[in-house]
């Protein structure tokens, strides 16, 4: 496992969250205070009972009613406390998720890819869960622990301050032990989380690549990969365990020593008549009460550290600046003239695109052609503003993309991606994904994309659910659905990324004719491998390793570009067939 050391994640003060929910926090603290405060009285009651009996020999019947009331009170308040913990923590999680989604939804695609969907998923699930645990456990845990520690310490001091001072020594001893061991475990916890990420990666890839694994019969290889991660996970778990298994005996031993002190020293005081037997019993009980909250504080400090780290990661997203406000310019009357000026894109140290310049007239058809990994898809992404260029600019009707109102701009620009990007919902919702798609536009789009036949054979028609990676649709069908989705905008500019790759010849011809007929003034930009389908285009851009090495019509390129001629030659033998069908 080689993981790049990620940037140090800042932790944020999770207690700030409590201020945002004053009512919830106040009630939570109040209930925890009351429930645990009342709890402290029980040993005192027992001590009073034993003392009043030993001194008078009479049954302490006057204590029955107060005992009953206190027990009932504890039950009610601790019930309320537990309920409040759940309500408050779930409320915070709900709101945080909502706010985080709101924030994410405003970002542009580049930001999402920078943060990566996987990390954002972790932010929205396990990080928020950690914050939830903080509210659910740490807040009440700390309040009640502090109350119990302070309360029982005071009661111990009141009962017998000399004995109390000796017994209270256990607080710093246990506290320091915790700090030392948790300091070491913390590192292992982080490592444990990394190992879990590793395990998950192996699992996820084996699911996503399940077909590949079965074809190559590499199930054993996958098992081997998993075994490595699994063994590391177990070893890390065992290391954490060995720290814990030394921590717990220390605590039990130290608290045992406190009891020993009480028995020997307290016993001595009782014998000397400086202490009553009732107080002696109460002392024993208070020490019992004292130990648990100390341990609790130790564990809570860990919960706080974890949730602070998670909240820090969440805060990082909130602190990310929103993309600059989009312009006000309406694209309603966009004619579709596009111009690229000195467009460059650098990713890392690699030049993806070098100072690309071209012009596309409104209502014309342009093809982008070039070898695998030439930067064609990135160029498309730059044209519509999905990716920010490193330098240079893109103009639509002579205006920068940023000047346009994004809503109105994307209502006029349709894009069909290379890979299938479909939502797990009905065909109708997938096609009418944009708000501006009305039923008239949807029907026109369906007809243009030659989907009528397909839809009519489906049992639920337009209401058929497109399953995630389902076997229900073929590659070409998905591609046509995506085209229909773009056309349903009734766009002025249409960009196709390798649309023809998965659609058969006949359908492709029909679709291109349909587009010409149904969307007469559209500006079309098409990335393709097939020269035959773009021979009559107004302009062909030949892209190679980030450079537009030639542009012009088919005829012009045949005269001027040797690279283009080579590509054309490689397809020529079959072109005879394809041309003969015209």
């Amino acid at each position, binding site marked *: 496992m080689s993981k790049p050391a990620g940037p140090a994640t800042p932790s944020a003060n999770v207690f700030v969250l409590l201020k945002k929910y004053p009512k919830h926090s106040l009630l939570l603290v109040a209930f925890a205070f009351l429930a645990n405060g009342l709890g402290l009285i029980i040993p005192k009651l*027992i001590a009073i009972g034993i003392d009043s009996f030993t001194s008078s020999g009479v049954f302490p019947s006057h204590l029955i009613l107060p005992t009953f009331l206190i027990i009932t009170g504890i039950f009610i308040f601790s019930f309320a406390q537990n309920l409040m913990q759940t309500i408050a*923590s779930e409320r915070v999680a709900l709101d945080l998720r909502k706010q985080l989604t709101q924030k994410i939804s405003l970002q542009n695609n580049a930001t999402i890819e920078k943060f990566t969907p996987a990390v954002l998923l972790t932010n929205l699930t396990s990080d928020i869960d950690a914050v939830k645990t903080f509210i659910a456990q740490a807040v009440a845990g700390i309040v009640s622990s502090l109350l119990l520690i302070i309360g029982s310490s005071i009661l111990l001091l009141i009962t017998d301050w000399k004995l109390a001072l000796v017994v209270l020594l256990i607080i710093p001893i246990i506290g320091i032990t915790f700090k030392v061991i948790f300091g070491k475990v913390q590192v292992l916890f982080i490592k444990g989380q990394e190992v879990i990420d590793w395990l998950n990666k192996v699992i996820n890839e084996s699911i996503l690549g399940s077909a*590949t694994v079965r074809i190559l019969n590499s199930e054993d290889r996958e098992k081997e990969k998993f075994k490595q991660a699994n063994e590391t996970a177990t070893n890390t778990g065992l290391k954490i365990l060995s720290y814990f298994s030394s921590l717990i005996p220390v605590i039990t031993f130290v608290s045992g020593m406190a009891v020993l002190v009480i028995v020997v020293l307290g016993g001595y005081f009782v014998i000397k008549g400086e202490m009553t*037997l009732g107080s002696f019993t109460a002392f024993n009980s208070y020490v019992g009460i004292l130990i648990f909250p100390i341990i609790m504080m130790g564990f809570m400090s860990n919960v706080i550290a974890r949730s602070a780290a998670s909240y820090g990661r969440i805060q990082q997203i909130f602190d990310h600046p929103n993309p600059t406000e989009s312009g006000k310019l309406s694209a309603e009357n966009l004619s579709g003239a596009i111009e690229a000026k000195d467009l460059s894109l650098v990713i890392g140290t690699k030049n993806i695109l070098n100072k690309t310049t071209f012009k596309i007239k409104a209502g014309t058809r342009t093809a982008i052609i070039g070898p695998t990994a030439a930067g064609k898809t990135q160029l498309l992404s730059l044209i519509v503003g999905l990716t920010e260029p490193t330098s240079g600019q893109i103009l639509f009707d002579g205006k920068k993309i940023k000047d346009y109102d994004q*809503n109105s701009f994307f209502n006029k620009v349709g894009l069909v991606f290379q890979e299938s990007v479909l939502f797990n919902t009905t065909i109708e919702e997938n096609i009418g994904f944009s708000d501006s798609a009305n039923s008239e536009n949807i029907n026109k789009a369906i007809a243009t994309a030659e989907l009528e036949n397909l839809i009519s054979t489906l049992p639920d028609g337009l209401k058929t659910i497109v399953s995630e990676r389902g076997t229900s649709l073929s590659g070409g069908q998905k591609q046509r659905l995506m085209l229909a989705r773009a056309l349903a905008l009734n766009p002025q500019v249409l960009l196709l990324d390798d649309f023809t790759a998965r659609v058969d010849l006949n359908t492709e011809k029909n679709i291109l004719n349909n587009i010409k007929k149904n969307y007469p003034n559209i500006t079309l930009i098409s990335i393709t491998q097939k020269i035959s389908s773009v021979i009559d285009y107004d302009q062909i851009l030949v892209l190679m390793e980030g450079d537009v090495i030639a542009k012009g019509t088919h005829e012009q390129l045949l005269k001027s570009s040797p690279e283009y001629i080579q590509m054309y030659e490689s397809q020529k033998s079959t072109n005879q067939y394809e041309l003969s069908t015209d």
Partner: protein
Amino acid sequence: MNYRLTNTSHQTESAFAAIKKFWPLLRNQKREIFLAFVAVIFSSIASLVGPLIIGLIVDKFIATKQISGVLSWGAVLFLVYALSAIATYFQTKLMGTVGQKLLFSLRSEIFNKLQSLPLAFFNQNKVGDLISRINNDTDKLNQFFSQALVQFISNSFMMVGAAIFLVMLNLKLGIASLVPAFALLIITKALSSWIKQKNNTNLKATGNLSAEISEALENFKLVAVFNRRDYFRNRFNEVNEVNYQSSLAAGVANNTLIPIYSLASNIAQAIVLFYGVSLIINGNLTVGLLVSYVSYVGRFYDPIRHVASIWSTFQIALAGWDRISEILNLKSELKITEVENKKSKKTNSLLEFSKVNFAYQEGKNVLHNISFDLEMGKTYAFVGPTGGGKTTIASLMSRLFDPTSGEIYLNGQDIKSFPEKERTQKIGFILQEPFLFSATIAENILYGNPKCQSLSITELEKVLAEFGLDKLLNRFPQGLETKVSTKGQLSLGQQQLIAFIRAILRKPELLILDEASANVDTVTEKLLDEILTKLPQTTTKVIIAHRFNTIENADEIFFVNAGNVTKAGSLKHAMELLLKEKRHS
């Protein structure tokens, strides 16, 4: 062929039945378990003997004012606490180790099961839900086994020991102080299935939530381009709300037991006080014993309270276990049959389809009574409109699925009778959408190729050169060492090239190319064609394509449409069919 996971929770299953299920995973740890139990018994006895000694010191020495007795019994008490600490150490260590190893076996079991299931399983279930089941639900089990189990068992022991002491010291007071515990037993039993069910619903909602988030995030560019940021929010808010409701319900369910247990503990203490005092008045109890009793009641009810808080962890783990065992209970229906089972009459065919019907969903046939055969060393093209069934045929050829009816023969023998290793060695299949693992390109190329696995980079380069595959590597910035990590980093065309190299290097007898170069430029594609000619003469090739240049050298062309296969004869005829065909898809 139904591998769809449901979400029905199995209410009948008791906690005990679940533990019994874990047993096979524990069998090889008998010695550790035995030692852990010894340690648990020791530490429980030690912590129970403590209060007894304190009671004795109070009655025999403090009440009679003998300081020397206090001191000497104090020394005994010290020994007991020391012993208790040592026993606690071994208890935590041994039980924890058992838990960790159990988790190891459990994770392996799940993963190995996943590897044994056929492709249909992965197609029928949502990826997001599967991942959530395996990551999230095993994590719930993890929490239980790595943290709660130790406490669960030691607390249970402590409880039983304290109960025995309570009853033995004074039968009447003992029974009286245990009455609230009986009430708890009944309440817990009554509430458990409710708690588990709430958690089950919640885990399901969590699965949906993460499935929804990952879908929306992975498709974010669509959201951006189509201006549907509101769609992203609305759809998410919906699942968020559902998750909130179920999580709230589960939280309430998980938290109800805790105050009830405290109540029982307090009632028991009150019983001990008042009933104990009245017993003393009747001369049936001493003050010293009463002091011990107060402490024993604590020692009985404190572990119960711990168990109560662990109990919900246990119910959550059980709910997770239900969802996981649904996967573990699935059995692959793609079994390897006996060799003599069925034989084809044809002798020189490599692969033969005989009256094959196939349906992904019952009753909806996508292939109708298909028969054809492929001879060794020839090249076959499958053409036809999209959605006609070409990919399905290819999937059946490589036995990703079994036909609903009809037979497929490989080398004249039922394809079902071939061991997986032999079959996959014979058949290479380049998928329409290739998958790459996050590793270097070299590792991806060698993936699933044991013969070449140990080659060094230079040796690998040599082997690649034999096939002319080296020319393809300059499409990658760092050649073989280029790292493939996140999605979108390599273009679809580049991914197809890697899948191509990977398949060629395995030297299959039958090579299926399903639109294998659809996104590769035509110049590179020419190169691929050349490479294909370098394969041994006996290699049979099946090419599925829309672009006709890739199939012009085919010996035979099959036309696939609406689940039927016909021989097209010449390329020209295939073209005509394709153009004239009124599509049924």
